[in-house]
């Protein structure tokens, strides 16, 4: 009986999740066809091409931007999670306030920054109006704009597991530290932060994975100048029509995400959250 309940999900996920990935896996070892498809012979050329300096640079940029976004999310998210965990009865309200923007349309949230940062956008209009600048600042289409968009979009991913860890922190430990003469900052640095390490790890992974595979944010806010792995993949499947190469890049991205996920599943916080 039970297997009938699982059957629809098994079939759907096999057909429309596992199967597509298997096809991409196979394509990555094939040769690009004359009209954009794939052909024999089997080759690992797509993977060796990923080591080209041009593509390696995109790979490094993706890792670097994702790592930087993660660090910024940790820096901005930790105090926020700490605040929520100490808010008593209002905990749930604040947590929902942090999570709510996350659910209100990824596309719209990214467009909002486009509206604010573009040449004729809010920031430039205000600064010009105040005669602080004579020409609009180039705020868009650089790594900084991408970073801002990613941190803005994924901050809640860090706050949630961080909060879950901090919330379980026994207040008696803080009292004990204070009784033993620790000043508030020492308590934070030597008691709270070490204990909340699992939250840091889980939150960082949850932010790093989507940032590494980001497509829409670098596409809209980075323009052609701040290309990440996701944009490379999209380009290979559409404009460049080099499916084997796009597949190889997808596979690398997928493996990286899956590896981080398996680390996440093993962490204690994940087991408690999931």
């Amino acid at each position, binding site marked *: 009986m039970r297997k009938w309940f699982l059957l629809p999900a098994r079939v*759907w*996920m096999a057909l429309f999740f596992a199967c597509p990935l298997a096809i991409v896996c196979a394509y990555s070892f094939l040769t690009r066809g004359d009209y954009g498809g794939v052909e024999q012979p089997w080759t690992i050329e797509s993977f060796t091409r990923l080591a080209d300096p041009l593509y390696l640079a995109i790979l490094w940029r993706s890792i670097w931007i994702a790592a930087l976004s993660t660090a910024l999310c940790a820096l901005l998210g930790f105090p926020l999670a700490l*605040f929520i965990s100490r808010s008593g009865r209002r905990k749930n309200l604040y947590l929902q306030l942090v999570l709510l923007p996350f659910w209100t349309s990824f596309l719209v949230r990214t467009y909002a920054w486009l509206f604010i940062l573009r040449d*004729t956008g809010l920031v430039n209009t205000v600064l010009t109006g105040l005669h602080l600048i004579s020409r609009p600042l180039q705020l868009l289409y650089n790594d900084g704009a991408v970073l801002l968009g990613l941190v803005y979009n994924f901050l809640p991913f860090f706050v949630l597991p961080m909060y879950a860890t901090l919330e379980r922190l026994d207040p008696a430990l803080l009292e004990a530290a204070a009784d033993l003469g620790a000043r508030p900052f020492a308590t934070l640095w030597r008691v709270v932060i070490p204990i909340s390490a699992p939250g840091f790890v889980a939150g960082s992974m949850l932010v790093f994975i989507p940032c590494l595979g980001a497509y829409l944010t670098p596409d809209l806010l980075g323009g052609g100048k701040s290309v990440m792995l*996701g944009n490379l993949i999209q380009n290979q499947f559409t404009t460049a029509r080099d499916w084997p190469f796009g597949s190889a890049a997808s596979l690398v991205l997928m493996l990286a995400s899956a590896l981080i*996920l398996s680390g996440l599943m093993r962490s204690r916080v994940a087991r408690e959250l999931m």
Partner: protein
Amino acid sequence: MKQRALSVYAALALAFLYAPLLILIVFSFNGGRFTLWEGFSLRWYRAAMNDPQLAGGLVNSLIVAAGATVLSTAIGTFAAYGLWRKASRLLSGTLYLSLVTPEIVTGVSLLALFQWAFRFLHLQLGLYTVVIAHVAFSIAYVAIVISARLRNHDRALEEAAMDLGASEWHAFSRVTLPLLAPAIAAAGLLALVVSFDDYVITSLVAGVDSETLPMVIYAMARRGVSPVLNAVSALIVVAFGGIILVSQRLQER
């Protein structure tokens, strides 16, 4: 003192999260075309209502979201229930993996699957391929919401039903399912929002005549500034916010 500094910081952080959305909403009521305030006006809302492309996108999005929501909610609920009865590492692992797979990878791999399948089947990309894709990534969301509710569900209830002569199916449909109703509604609303919002995967697997609302919005955003977009965005933010609030209330019940 320390707590107060933390409160000030939290207020600033929340302002950072909400300001861009509020700015969009405020400027959607701007009478002028530019980013200068020229008085209150509903002209961009009127323009949005009269835009045939936006209307077409909205219709397509509603069709897709309706289909994807019904299918993924049913499949996800059954899956969560089946997993609650007995865990399956393979299925739950696959569901989590689908959740963290970068959208662009999901999108191109589905595109590859469809193109491969179309060599044998004489079909084309259309709205139905979008529905298939949306169901594939929504099942995990639904299953997680339902699983969270089932964690507090007393197994004795079904056992009691079966002791009293109910079949396995009846124990599920007459005992567990009614108790799950709020969680199912919450999961369905979540699936609706996730489907309605998707751009990346949709843009890869949609047919030529099946532009969804996010695809229209993306094209408009790419073309340049248009206050019409602010009005549409404001409507989406308010609608999504409302739906999610309802979904969260339901999950707490």
